[in-house]
């Protein structure tokens, strides 16, 4: 057994930390307070070759491993959860299904610019009436000559307003339920595709989230991803990997909460001593650090399973479940340690608290994570 990261993984972590100090930390507060999408950072992520980390070089990727990608997400999210998530959505949700299920032509046309960071990607599954019950979506796709015609409305679609391409799910045969769903590669400029209202979120405020409306949206029939009826399978397998990414995002948020808490408790003096000298604070910090470390090992283990070609669905769900609850619990603790100042808008721990919550919800709620885990136990 080996708990040592490779030299390359350690160097990448150091590079991301340096990158964050230089480019992410200085604007992290603006990203949150002004709901500012950091496009300049996205361009820099592409320059660093971090926009297609786990994908092969021939498709514009870096040809690295999933664990390296996870480390990058962790470190970016530690500085700015919006930035980490933007990359996660792009890499795990948009690029993955094209990489895994796309034809050679589709990969050349779409995966290459995605991996090179020339365009951002988005993933549109959720609908106003279909969240956890993703198979109940109402969107439809009908083949008309050489084109599919898509109709319907997608909800809570991250990156949609800045995406160059979206992977959109719609039913090609409503009578078949989940087995009638198909996946499509939809260019952002496809006729009939509209990006609706930007949603005003509680956390990850810089990440752009919007409705996606398809009104007789026409795309070439070769933009079908996989076969007709494979969409639900494609969506679920994409979300399996995405969960490791969200675990990494939660891990970064939790680590940041711990960092802030340790630093503040050493500075803040009450009763003539730094509050870090009080056992109540020490125990909170000890619990935080232990959970963060456990979340890290679960997350890295899930990524390792992915890299080894082992099954990783259960491991990803466990990592996501534990890391997200760790982030939610300990950002709360971080505010408790900070007291009043931590409750003030614009303070780092106040932001972390709001950013953490979504990691328990998106890309499958924690209730779904428990279903996945128990399902694999009871099979």
């Amino acid at each position, binding site marked *: 057994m080996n708990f040592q990261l490779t*030299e*390359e993984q350690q*160097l*990448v972590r150091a590079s991301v930390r340096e990158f964050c100090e230089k480019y992410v930390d200085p604007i992290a507060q603006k990203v949150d307070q002004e709901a500012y999408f950091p496009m300049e950072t996205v361009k820099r992520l592409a320059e*660093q070759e971090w926009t297609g980390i786990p994908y092969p070089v021939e498709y514009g990727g*870096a*040809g690295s491993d999933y664990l390296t990608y996870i480390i990058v997400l962790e470190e970016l999210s530690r500085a700015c959860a919006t930035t980490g998530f933007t990359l996660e959505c792009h890499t795990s949700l948009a690029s993955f299904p094209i990489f895994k299920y796309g034809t050679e032509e589709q990969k050349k046309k779409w995966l290459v610019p995605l991996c090179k960071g020339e365009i951002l990607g988005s993933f549109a599954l959720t609908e106003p009436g279909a969240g956890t019950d993703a198979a109940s979506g109402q969107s439809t796709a009908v083949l008309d000559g050489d084109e599919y015609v898509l109709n319907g409305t997608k909800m809570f679609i991250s990156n949609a307003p800045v995406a160059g391409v979206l992977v959109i799910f719609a039913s090609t045969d409503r009578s078949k339920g989940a087995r009638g769903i198909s996946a499509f590669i939809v260019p952002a400029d496809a006729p009939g595709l509209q990006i609706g209202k930007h949603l005003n979120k509680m956390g990850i405020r810089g990440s752009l989230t919007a409705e996606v409306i398809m009104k007789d949206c026409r795309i070439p029939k070769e933009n079908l991803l996989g076969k007709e009826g494979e969409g639900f399978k494609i969506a679920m397998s994409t979300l399996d990997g995405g969960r490791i990414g969200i675990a990494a995002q939660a891990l970064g948020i939790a680590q940041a909460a711990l960092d802030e808490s340790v630093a503040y408790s050493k500075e803040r003096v009450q009763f003539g001593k730094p509050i870090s000298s009080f056992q109540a604070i020490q125990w909170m910090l000890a619990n935080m650090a232990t959970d963060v470390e456990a979340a890290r090992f679960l997350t890295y283990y899930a990524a390792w399973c992915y890299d080894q070609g082992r099954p990783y669905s259960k491991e990803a769900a466990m990592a996501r479940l534990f890391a997200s609850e760790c982030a939610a619990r300990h950002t709360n603790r971080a505010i408790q340690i900070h007291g009043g100042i931590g409750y003030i808008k614009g303070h780092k721990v106040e932001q972390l608290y709001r950013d953490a919550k979504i990691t328990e919800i998106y890309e499958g709620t924690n209730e779904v994570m428990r279903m996945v885990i128990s399902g694999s136990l009871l099979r």
Partner: protein
Amino acid sequence: MLNTIACFKWVMDEADIKSDPKTRQLIYERVGYKISDYDRNAIEEAVRLQEEHGGSVVAVTVAPSGARQCLKDALSRGPGKACFINDPTFTGLEPGQTASILAAAISKMEYDLIICGEGSSDLYAQQVGPALAEKLGIPCATYVNKLTYVAEENKIVAERKLDDGIEAVSIQLPALVTVLPEINTPRIPSLKQVLGAAKKPVEDIGLDSLAGTFSPCLKTTGVLAAVMERRRLRYGTGEEDIRKVVEALLREGVIA
């Protein structure tokens, strides 16, 4: 064409060094290592000159044999090759020892220019560069914040940032310069640069292949953490208050 050697030191990351508040002993047990800050500027400048004028860049370090990890870090920043001058005994070297070891190895290499950081992140003695130039018998410019290569005259023009202004010096090659952090902004290695570092050549140079002896001349009797005590005194802005501040500073020995 300019063949440059960029020297670098693998140092403890000062952010990881802790101290025992009671004994003031430094605790190194969880310390990480990095390329000394100004040496990154040295490597960056060598790579920048190569991009502009062609030639080669070799990254050279003197380190204990266990510090092999430093090579990929250096190579990911652009040099085409690294020289790892190593021995298990190369720990806690004095600047004079490092300069002698470097000189013994570099005297067998072909080069036009050697670039060092102005000082290391740990000791900041600012001695290795000038001492190395002396031992190699080549000219040296320190405090350099701008470097220009004049190919047709085989010389460099170095701007030195001194207390009383900027001094521009023209030096015939081969030469050595020590650079300040203002000279450039080191680029963060891209992922492919990091992954490609392992494929670049590394020359191992052991102690047995170096002529000379490299004994220390200093003896370290102890290292203790500095202590910053807060007195929590508060003074007003009146004339009498300012007098009290000055008296307090005199009493504490802060001013004399």
